[in-house]
């Protein structure tokens, strides 16, 4: 058995630990159970001790980390369940199905909580857009997301997308889903003693066997032989499963719900039992299959999609079966809870595995020694060359750089309105806004992360990610309530990789404490590296906030003659900036400093101005700095502006810095708006006025002017060319 353990990649010390916990050697089936349950993907062996440091408590929190998704209260008895999850490795192998099944998986997580999925956001990272393989992956992933999301009828309302050398070999595909529920419909992964456990949905095949373990390994060179059968998503069946599950919850037929995701039956049943403080006996002969002669290991490890685990309330079994029958789906008891805290598996009438649930669920954790990569430190401390360029040319070039260019060609592929809740369409605001129909409540969501900042300074990069996502949510008028984090990093087994993991989590903690926004769910994807090249540490932070739907702000200038103000200072930094990369090809320097206290107050201020109805147009300053942000505000309605910048140099025009927001007020409201800002002691400047069809900027060095349409054309071209071709 020890030889087999070695062959399937279980380290020697873990094999000894398994034998110790069982008080005997594991058999073949049991060994595979440990293999998948103790994979990084399922067990968080390296990240768990670090993740413990994150603040998880908050007034709005109904359910923190540890369930299928986190849940926050938003008022009037409504709550929102949300979570982000990675599907990086499957997407690298087969981008279309990888992305599609990633979307399907996160949707099932949300409905497991008793919530109706109402919105999807996607956080995507690829290698340079010039690279043919990156373009192939981008197209496949976008098509896969569209295929699944559009058909199942959950709108894709936002996300973020970056191209960076560091993702050339290891693209990232993370999907975030939000669901809406009444507080009383909240369900968890729980079962009481002696209850039958039902298997519902699609039949089991040999799809993605060992996928969870696969996800926790470096992509190997011999992809062809090495990979498991590709999982195919079926949004049609997914839709039926979603409706049937939600109907069962609404009719109060089930006490517990769990989705079947990574590591299939093994993970869903053993975790359900463990969380319930019970054991479970699974009879594999009852599992609906679509392929012949499946062995116990295949049945246990299959990652066939569109499957759920349901625990009926006592006496409601028949009704539950009826609901699923109406939707044309299998729904059969395959297991039952038992008092002995073991995961017992029967196959052809014999016990083929029996292990303590705790032994499976509580994998050993590792605390390692991290050390910063000296190369990264060198880059950060590189003195930056002086920048010289004609700003007139820089702006259109910046707008056409792949990281800043219009995402319209992407989001046009997604149905972003199905469900009639989308109050702020993609491209219209800094965050998506969903309306809770029948109320004045709105839910805002945004996912953010900047790979350049994070690569140069993992801790500060993570802080920026959370601060920016909160800022974007605030800029539409919503109060951030909580976040979900999708941590994507390299191998923790190198000191440099572990350091980046440590620093990323430390940064999230710092920002989370200062901004008062706790984490409620998340996902960790490690080993994103090939040939010793790690991806930039990538903490994709998805923030959810709540607002009064009647008081929301868009980003586009709408009415001529409004005053444009800058909340924050007219200064930017060049370290890690897009303009530095554009003009010198360098990704170096110290990323912009972040004063979290200032950040918190700036966000409060803009929420107050929106809440008072003083502004309906606001936009965060991000990559590309002041002029890029202004140009972006002219695009939605084609309305121009004239502004004055007093500080000389490219730094003021294109440099980057957090805690800054552009907004407009009607002239009659200027006094009150500025009075409020002075009262809060926040710096601001009146920059100019909206109007016309050009963007005119008066600088100490002269007047700059661009036609809005000319800038828009440059901004739209790059992704249109790739995706429409």
């Amino acid at each position, binding site marked *: 058995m020890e030889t087999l353990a070695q062959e399937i990649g279980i380290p020697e010390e873990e094999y000894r630990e398994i034998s110790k916990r069982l008080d005997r050697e594991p058999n073949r089936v049991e060994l595979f159970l440990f293999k998948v349950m103790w994979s990084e993907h399922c067990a968080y062996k390296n990240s768990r001790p670090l993740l413990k440091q994150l603040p998880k408590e908050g007034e709005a929190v109904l359910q923190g980390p540890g369930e299928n998704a986190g849940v926050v209260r938003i008022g009037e008895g409504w709550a929102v369940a949300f979570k982000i999850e990675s599907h990086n490795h499957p997407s690298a*192998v*087969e981008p279309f*199905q990888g992305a599609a099944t990633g979307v399907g998986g996160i949707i099932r997580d949300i409905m497991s909580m008793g919530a109706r999925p109402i919105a999807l956001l996607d956080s995507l990272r690829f290698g340079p857009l010039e690279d043919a393989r990156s373009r192939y992956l981008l197209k496949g992933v976008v098509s896969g997301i569209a295929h699944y999301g559009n058909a199942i009828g959950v709108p894709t309302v936002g996300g973020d997308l970056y191209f960076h050398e560091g993702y050339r070999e290891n693209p990232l595909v993370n999907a975030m889903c939000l669901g809406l529920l009444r507080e009383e419909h909240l369900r968890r992964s729980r079962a009481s003693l002696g209850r039958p456990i039902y298997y519902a949905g*699609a039949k089991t*095949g*040999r*799809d993605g066997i060992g996928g969870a373990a696969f996800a926790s390994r470096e992509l190997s060179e011999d992809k*062809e032989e090495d*990979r498991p*059968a*590709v*999982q*195919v*998503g*079926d949004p*049609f*069946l997914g839709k039926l499963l979603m409706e049937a599950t939600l109907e069962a919850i609404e009719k109060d037929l089930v006490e517990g719900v769990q989705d079947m995701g990574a590591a299939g039956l093994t993970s869903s049943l053993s975790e359900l039992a463990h969380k319930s403080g019970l054991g479970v006996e699974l009879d594999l002969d009852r599992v609906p299959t*679509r*392929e012949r002669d499946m062995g116990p290991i295949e049945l246990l490890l299959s990652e*066939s*999609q569109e499957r759920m685990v349901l625990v009926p309330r006592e006496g409601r079994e028949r009704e539950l079966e009826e609901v699923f029958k109406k939707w*044309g789906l299998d729904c059969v008891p395959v297991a039952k809870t038992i008092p002995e805290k073991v995961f017992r598996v029967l196959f052809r009438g014999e016990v083929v595995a029996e292990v303590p649930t705790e032994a499976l669920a509580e994998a050993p954790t590792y605390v390692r020694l991290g050390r910063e990569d000296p190369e990264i430190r060198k880059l950060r401390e590189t003195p930056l060359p002086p920048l010289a360029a004609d700003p007139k040319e820089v702006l259109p070039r910046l707008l056409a750089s792949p990281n800043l260019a219009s995402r319209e060609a992407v989001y046009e592929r997604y149905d972003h309105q199905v469900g009639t809740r989308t109050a702020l369409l993609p491209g219209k605001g800094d965050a998506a806004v969903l309306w809770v129909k029948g109320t004045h409540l709105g839910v805002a969501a945004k996912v953010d992360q900047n790979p350049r900042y994070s690569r140069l300074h993992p801790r500060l990069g993570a802080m920026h990610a959370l601060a920016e996502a909160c800022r974007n949510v605030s800029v539409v008028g919503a109060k951030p309530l909580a976040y979900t984090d999708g941590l994507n990093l390299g191998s923790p087994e190198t000191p440099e990789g572990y350091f980046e993991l440590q620093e990323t989590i430390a940064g999230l903690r710092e920002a989370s404490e200062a901004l008062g926004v706790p984490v409620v769910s998340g996902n960790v994807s490690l080993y994103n590296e090939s040939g010793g090249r790690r991806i930039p540490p990538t903490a994709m932070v998805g923030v959810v906030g709540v607002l009064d739907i009647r008081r929301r702000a868009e980003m586009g200038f709408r009415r001529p003659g409004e005053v444009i103000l800058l909340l924050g200072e007219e200064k930017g930094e060049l370290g890690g900036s897009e303009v530095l990369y554009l003009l010198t090809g360098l990704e170096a320097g110290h990323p912009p400093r972040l004063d979290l206290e200032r950040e918190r107050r700036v966000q409060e201020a803009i929420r107050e101005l929106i809440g008072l109805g003083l502004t309906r147009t606001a936009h965060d300053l991000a990559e590309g700095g002041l002029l890029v942000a202004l140009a972006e505000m002219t695009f939605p309605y084609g309305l121009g502006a004239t502004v004055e910048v007093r500080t000389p140099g490219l730094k003021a025009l294109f440099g980057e810095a957090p805690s800054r927001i552009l907004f407009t007020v009607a002239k009659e409201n200027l006094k009150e708006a500025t009075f409020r800002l002075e009262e809060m002691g926040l710096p601001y400047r009146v920059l100019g006025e909206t109007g016309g069809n050009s963007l005119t900027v008066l600088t100490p060095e002269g007047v700059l002017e661009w036609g809005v349409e000319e800038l828009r054309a440059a901004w739209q071209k790059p992704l249109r060319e790739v995706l429409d071709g």
Partner: protein
Amino acid sequence: MPKYQATLLIELKEGILDPQGRAVEGVLKDLGHPVDSVRVGKVLEVVFPAETLLEAEEKAKAMGNLLANPVMEVFTLEALKELP
């Protein structure tokens, strides 16, 4: 150069889930046709020049390799004929 017509059949590999086939199967059953299973594939008819039948076969197979997604599909050269 003579023209050949190749008929390429692209199917999902055995064991790969075929949602389309499954949905069609369900409807056929609902409408009273007792069927055991349905798999949906694609048929491509490609007309191209080649000197000999042997060369045409090589070319057709090369195209099949190109057009089928090896991760999840297989192709069969169903027919190959010289066009008059």
